[in-house]
């Protein structure tokens, strides 16, 4: 016996759809023993009404016409379970998003709602109770990315006794935060708060650290991902290297210094930076003389530990993981292509804030002295330009980088602290200082440190008599402004980290239109990615500051712990199933399955049929559509169910 509940959703539905009339029409449908209209079906009283009707009228399947199933399907499934029914004996009808909200005419909308209910009543006759299974979950998590997000997530997960593998692409963990000088709004030293955590990672019993490593291939799914990790050859034995840096000192081949944002040169064999974890050298073959036809073997000869091994090859390590945290951080927007009037990167004294951060840092190329790149002179006038590649439709980048206002204010303060007689000018669009103590911090930059804030966009930057002229509009004064500066710092926008898109594809998760990894729901599932068992931490999901990153990393860790703590997972019953007596053994299902979830089965009578490996099946139903005899069905979306809907809706 069928029960039909029509939700009024306050007036969200009832304003356009005559819910009483829909309930009356439903009451006349075959097999419907109960139909009523409820003000808020998802509310406690609403769910209680369902339970009461189930008991009184002995209903065995329920149709609920309300909002989108994407909203409340899970809610109502639980309600059915509480009412003693199988949660899958429920079908939702979307009469809000796809009916009441898109039609103005009550008659038309009501008729459509009745149609949709009829369709669901027809469909639910073909429902069968479904039971999810349980599968063992591997108690090990993979964290991808060794920035502050990955570090925090790894530490938090391992604190719950769950082993973690932390994979970092570059030679050291630390990420972008390790490159920062001080952090807003407290101005504490970035390294001072980060390095202890980095060391803790290295020393932790439950954390396996792999640097120079990337995810190669991902198979399986939540609870049991099989992941290949490629450890790039660095020609240095990590176990032997002591980080003495003799090799770096003697190496004759220059190479760019990535850590210092290209402001200075490093060597082909080098330690990433003095506080690197692990503190080991790595060799970049593309810059090494030996690997470019030369005969140099200096580093190998000089290494006191004998750690240099030119024959070292890439190594692919395969591991099983129950869950994955993506913490790949962000990259820097390359402004040179989109801002030709800023000199296309040809003026050495127009630098990015990331580079400026290194100039400010005591561990930077200038030892913490601000020296402009062109001539090494100390700048007096420093101009900061906000929103370069952020909030700029003309550059195709409408998004806010969310940290630019704050770090620009911070850099202005630090400039004044380094060079007390300097003057900072900040071109901004709006000052966004929404965090705790942020507004006070910006005000301090203005009042105590005398930074001059100019509201407006910069139009042009060009050199004049050894200085850089920054031309822009002051939209508050309504004037053109021209600042002569010794150094110009561009607050370049943040992008998804290079390679994030490729990783997302491997993990089978989505990226949004800006290239950052997409969360499952912007409000309710902010750390869950679209693939079960994959979580997002930090700026890989969108630009954010350190506190927000750390908070999200903690949240992602909590999700991983929640998922893996019981050691087993409930599997969705909405997977494919084979009816062996209908299977022709043609295996077209196996050809089209994206997850390798189809296997051969030999029945007792020798017949060879397909079999679904339920733990690998993700419920896409592609096999169902490809199976000619209709032997393989996707539970919950069987041919029978879809045809029932289809035929009914066209009557």
């Amino acid at each position, binding site marked *: 016996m069928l029960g039909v509940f029509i939700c009024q959703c306050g007036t969200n539905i009832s304003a356009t759809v005559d819910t009483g009339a829909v309930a009356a029409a439903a009451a006349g449908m075959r097999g419907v023993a109960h139909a009523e209209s409820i003000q808020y079906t998802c509310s406690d009283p609403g769910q209680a009404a369902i339970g009461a009707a189930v008991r009184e009228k002995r209903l065995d399947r329920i149709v609920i016409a309300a909002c989108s199933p994407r909203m409340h399907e899970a809610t109502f499934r639980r309600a059915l379970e509480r009412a003693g029914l199988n949660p899958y004996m429920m079908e939702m009808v979307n009469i809000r998003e796809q009916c009441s909200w898109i039609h103005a005419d009550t008659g038309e909308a009501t008729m459509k709602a009745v149609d949709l209910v009829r369709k669901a009543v027809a469909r639910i006759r073909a429902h069968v109770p479904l039971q999810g299974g349980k599968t063992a979950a591997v108690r090990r998590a993979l964290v991808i990315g060794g920035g502050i997000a990955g570090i925090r997530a790894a530490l938090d997960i391992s604190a719950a006794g769950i082993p973690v593998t932390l994979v970092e692409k570059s030679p050291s963990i630390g990420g972008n935060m390790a490159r920062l000088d001080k952090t807003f709004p407290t101005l504490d030293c970035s390294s001072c708060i980060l390095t202890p955590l980095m060391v803790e990672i290295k020393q932790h019993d439950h954390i396996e650290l792999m640097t120079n490593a990337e995810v190669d291939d991902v198979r399986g799914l939540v609870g049991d991902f099989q992941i290949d990790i490629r450890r790039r050859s660095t020609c240095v034995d990590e176990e032997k290297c002591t980080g003495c840096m003799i090799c770096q000192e003697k190496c004759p081949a220059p190479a760019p210094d990535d850590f210092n944002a290209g402001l200075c040169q490093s060597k082909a064999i080098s330690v990433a930076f003095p506080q690197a974890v692990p503190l080991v050298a790595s060799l970049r073959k593309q810059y090494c003389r030996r690997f470019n036809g030369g005969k140099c073997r200096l580093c190998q000869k000089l290494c006191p530990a004998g750690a240099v091994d030119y024959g070292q090859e890439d190594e692919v390590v395969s591991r099983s993981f129950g869950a994955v945290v993506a913490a790949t951080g962000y990259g820097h927007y390359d402004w040179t292509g989109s801002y030709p009037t800023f000199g296309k990167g040809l003026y050495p004294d127009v630098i990015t804030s990331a580079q400026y951060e290194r100039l400010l840092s005591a561990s930077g190329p200038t030892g913490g002295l601000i020296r402009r790149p062109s001539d090494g002179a100390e700048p007096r006038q420093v101009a900061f330009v906000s929103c370069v590649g952020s909030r700029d439709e003309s550059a195709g980048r409408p998004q806010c980088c969310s940290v630019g206002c704050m770090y620009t204010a911070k850099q202005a303060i630090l400039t004044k602290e380094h060079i007390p007689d300097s003057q900072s000018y900040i071109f901004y669009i709006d000052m966004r200082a929404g965090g705790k103590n942020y507004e006070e911090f910006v005000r301090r930059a203005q009042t105590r440190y005398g930074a001059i804030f100019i509201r407006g966009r910069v139009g042009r930057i060009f050199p004049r008599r050894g200085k850089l002229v920054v031309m822009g509009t002051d939209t508050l004064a309504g004037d053109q402004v021209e600042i002569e500066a010794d150094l110009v710092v561009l607050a370049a926008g943040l992008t998804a980290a290079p390679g994030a898109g490729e990783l997302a594809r491997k993990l089978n998760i989505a990226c949004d239109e800006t290239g950052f990894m997409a969360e499952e729901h912007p409000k309710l599932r902010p750390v869950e990615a679209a693939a079960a068992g994959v979580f997002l931490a930090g700026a890989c999901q969108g630009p954010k500051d350190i506190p927000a990153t750390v908070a999200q990393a903690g949240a992602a860790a909590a999700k991983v712990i929640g998922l893996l703590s019981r050691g087993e997972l409930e599997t969705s019953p909405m997977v494919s199933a084979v009816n062996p007596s209908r299977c022709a053994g043609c295996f*077209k299902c196996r050809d089209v399955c994206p997850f390798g979830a189809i296997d051969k089965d030999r029945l007792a009578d020798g017949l060879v049929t397909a079999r679904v490996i339920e733990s690998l099946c993700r419920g896409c139903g592609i096999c169902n559509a490809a199976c000619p*005899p209709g032997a393989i069905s996707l539970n919950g979306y069987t041919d029978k169910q879809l045809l029932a809907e289809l035929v009914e809706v066209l009557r």
Partner: protein
Amino acid sequence: MEELIPIIKKALEQVDVVLGWAQSPAAGVAVPAFFHTPAEADAAVFDSTCAHNLAVYLPRLADKKVGIVAKGCDARSIAQLIAEGAVKRSGVFVIGASCPGMIDVKKAWRCFGFGKQVCDAAGKVAMEGKTVAREEILLWKCRGCRDPEPVICDVTVGEASSEAPAPPAEPAGIRKRFAAMTVAERRQFWQDQFSRCIRCYACREACPLCVCRDVCTIQAHEPGWAGAAVDSPQSWMAQLIRVNHLAGRCTGCEECERACPVGIPLMLLLEEQNDVVEELFGYRAGGEAKPPFLTFDIKNDTWDEER
């Protein structure tokens, strides 16, 4: 073609059965025959009435080692069955027969009456004094045949045919009429054609690529893709199921149309589908590759989004 008999006898040394043809006294033409022993093989014939595609029997004999006499078009079906894994290459011994083009026995019967022995020589088909020009009585598929020689073959018999019969200059008969129809006229056309379908499924059973056979969804009560009612819309739907399941798999052997006892021009549908598949995916069933609906590599899926 006398050399066929010793070849079959030789093949029987290594296979359980050889599929070929023997003359039917009643029909006056060749009919499929199963040769288990050398003595039986003495009845083997190969002439221009051997239109049947014997590949249809291969999936049913998957547990045996089978020899098969195959024309060029039949060999494409065998290749397709192998590509799809329905038949093992090691399980078949293909005796490739050079094909002169097969005559449409139904046309012959129309001209001469059922059961009259057909004489096919010197460009004419003759019987009891009546003659018909050979090209007029050929099966449609044989005109402009693209594969007179088998693509897959263990031994050949007969001389390579000099030249494939010329393709017709333009669609003739029903093809011409169909091509000129509007969409609405076609809707009516099919309604008329399928009003005489009796759902005997000879089309399906004669099709070498319809490998589901006993479990075919068309006859399944559930989920009910096509109703069991023998009426035009349901029979049409039933045929569309078959056509859809043959997408990228049909080798164009025309067996379904030949088998249809009520003369429904099924090849109009399959020829169209085969053409579209070839145009879209550059794929023609009957080679070594799997159909484009079963395999593809996302990275190399070079489809133009905007077309």
